[in-house]
């Protein structure tokens, strides 16, 4: 540590440039991670707000809630831990407001999802012509009492409440009654819901034509969700590898320049572990400094970022990403360490 600190102090410009590069990479990684988390949350916020453990869908729906239709017979009797939903995509509009692409979710007033809905303003739905909408509508300028039309339906629906974290597949949710869902889908007879949501991990529906999934299985099948996550993971992974290469190259060049000095130190009896420790400590100090600055920049970005940008700043996950970069720094220092260990003190004798 002594040698590492002294070198960083003396070589301010060189160290500063490395820290600057690490900061840029770290900042990019943290912002991408926040964006990935934000988008992932906007895909799944609603599902997690229902505390869902199992989801039953039509067996032929390809694990897609929008494509699923369940009859009363398929639903069967439900406990207080289950609730049915009816899902469909809608375009909501109100006079003087911009159109909003949204997901309509029909609920049964007596079941837990409707009863447990946490409102940030207003009240819960009491009749079929009322809806509770995600706060994204509020951000877009919608107010309590605004009359919505959904798709080309002439019926007007009054916004009676706002609820937070009500997003599914990045679209804001319009919560209403199941009867409204049937109306929007043009269902006259037959299906009564899209899915059964259960808080009970032991819930199983074994009726004909239905299948019960773990929540994560349904989430993975949300349109675009897995591809989007894989893209982000790949980008972050590449950046990690790039940071490893940068650290390794910089340290390698720095170490190669110092090898004649190290050979003298070895001749003087300074153990290899001291020189190896200096190389590793230097790598970790530089990356740690870069990551601290990157974290500060990310925090500033979080403050300045408009609410509409889907970013989430999950400290444990971001800390884990930071720790990942430190591991990369450690790996990056292994290449120059090999050179340090192979320094031959005999080489300094004889000029």
């Amino acid at each position, binding site marked *: 540590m*002594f*040698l590492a600190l*002294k*070198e960083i*102090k*003396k*070589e301010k410009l060189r160290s500063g440039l490395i820290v600057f590069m690490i900061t840029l990479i770290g900042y990019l990684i943290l912002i991408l991670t926040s964006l990935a988390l934000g988008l992932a949350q906007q895909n799944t916020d609603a599902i997690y707000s229902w505390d869902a453990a199992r989801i039953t869908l039509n067996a032929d729906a390809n694990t897609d809630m929008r494509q699923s239709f369940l009859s009363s017979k398929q639903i069967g009797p439900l406990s207080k831990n289950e609730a049915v939903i009816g899902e469909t995509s809608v375009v909501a509009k109100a006079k003087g407001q911009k159109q909003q692409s949204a997901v309509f979710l029909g609920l049964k007033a007596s079941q837990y999802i409707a009863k447990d809905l946490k409102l940030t303003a207003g009240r819960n739905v009491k009749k079929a012509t009322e809806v509770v909408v995600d706060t994204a509508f509020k951000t877009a300028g919608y107010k309590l009492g605004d009359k919505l039309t959904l798709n080309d339906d002439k019926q007007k629906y009054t916004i009676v409440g706002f609820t937070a974290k009500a997003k599914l597949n990045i679209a804001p949710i319009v919560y209403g009654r199941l009867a409204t869902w049937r109306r929007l889908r043009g269902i006259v007879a037959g299906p009564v819901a899209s899915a059964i949501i259960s808080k009970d991990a032991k819930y199983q529906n074994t009726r004909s034509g239905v299948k019960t999934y773990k929540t994560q299985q349904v989430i993975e099948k949300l349109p675009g969700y897995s591809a989007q996550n894989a893209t982000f993971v790949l980008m972050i992974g590449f950046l990690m590898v790039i940071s490893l290469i940068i650290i390794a190259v910089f340290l390698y060049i720095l170490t190669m320049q*110092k090898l*004649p*000095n190290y*050979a*003298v*130190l*070895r*001749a*003087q*009896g*300074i*153990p290899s572990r*001291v020189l190896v420790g200096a190389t590793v400590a230097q790598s970790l100090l530089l990356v740690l400094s870069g990551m601290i600055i990157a974290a500060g920049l990310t925090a500033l970005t979080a403050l300045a970022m408009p609410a509409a940008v889907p970013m989430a700043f999950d400290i444990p996950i971001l800390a884990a990403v930071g720790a990942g970069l430190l591991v990369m720094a450690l790996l990056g220092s292994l290449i120059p360490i090999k050179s340090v260990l192979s320094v031959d*003190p*005999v080489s*300094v*004798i*004889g*000029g």
Partner: protein
Amino acid sequence: MSSFTIKHVDQIFGSGTAQVQALHDVNFEADAGTLSLIMGPSGSGKSTFLTIAGGLLTPTAGTVTLNGISYTERSKKERDALRLDAIGFVLQAYHLLPYLTVADQFRLVDKVKPSGNLSPEALEDVLQTLGIQALTNKYPGELSGGQQQRVAIARALYPDPAIILADEPTAALDSARVAVVGALFKTLATKHNKAVVIVTHDLRLREFADRTYQMEDGRLSEAS
């Protein structure tokens, strides 16, 4: 008994037709308080002698003993510790760490070997003797070649070694400078009671030596 002895040392490099015998039955002694010169032309085996004397290389045959302790059979790690503790190297290329001030060059030794080094008063005395007491906050890049050499000498003395081994310390120096450096090494031997061994081809250092040896084709003999 001499503080430093080399007995019947042979050094062979390579094997078969590529085999080269660099040292032949080399015997050498150096006492504390004396300055010995090992002289000889390039390729005579001086560097190999210094490498073995400094514990950097184990000889093919023979023993090297410092204060009664043979270190030729010690492990690499033990020889590292011995070099740090008991052998001071002054090398032709000083290679002081460029990012350590003069004072930090000594602090590095303290970090690795916390005890047995010169006291602050003794170090101050050495720095004064070498005329570099005002340079402790300077980096090597801010020093002249001569100043760097004196810092390297002080650095070699700092762990309070029993023996100082110097490799061509006057290479590329003019006669006036050689006289200064020669006197300096003589002072190190007498004032600090060290066995000083200088490997050189510089005849101008002979006047400072207590004993002078000649290395010729790997054979060492005391010069008259």
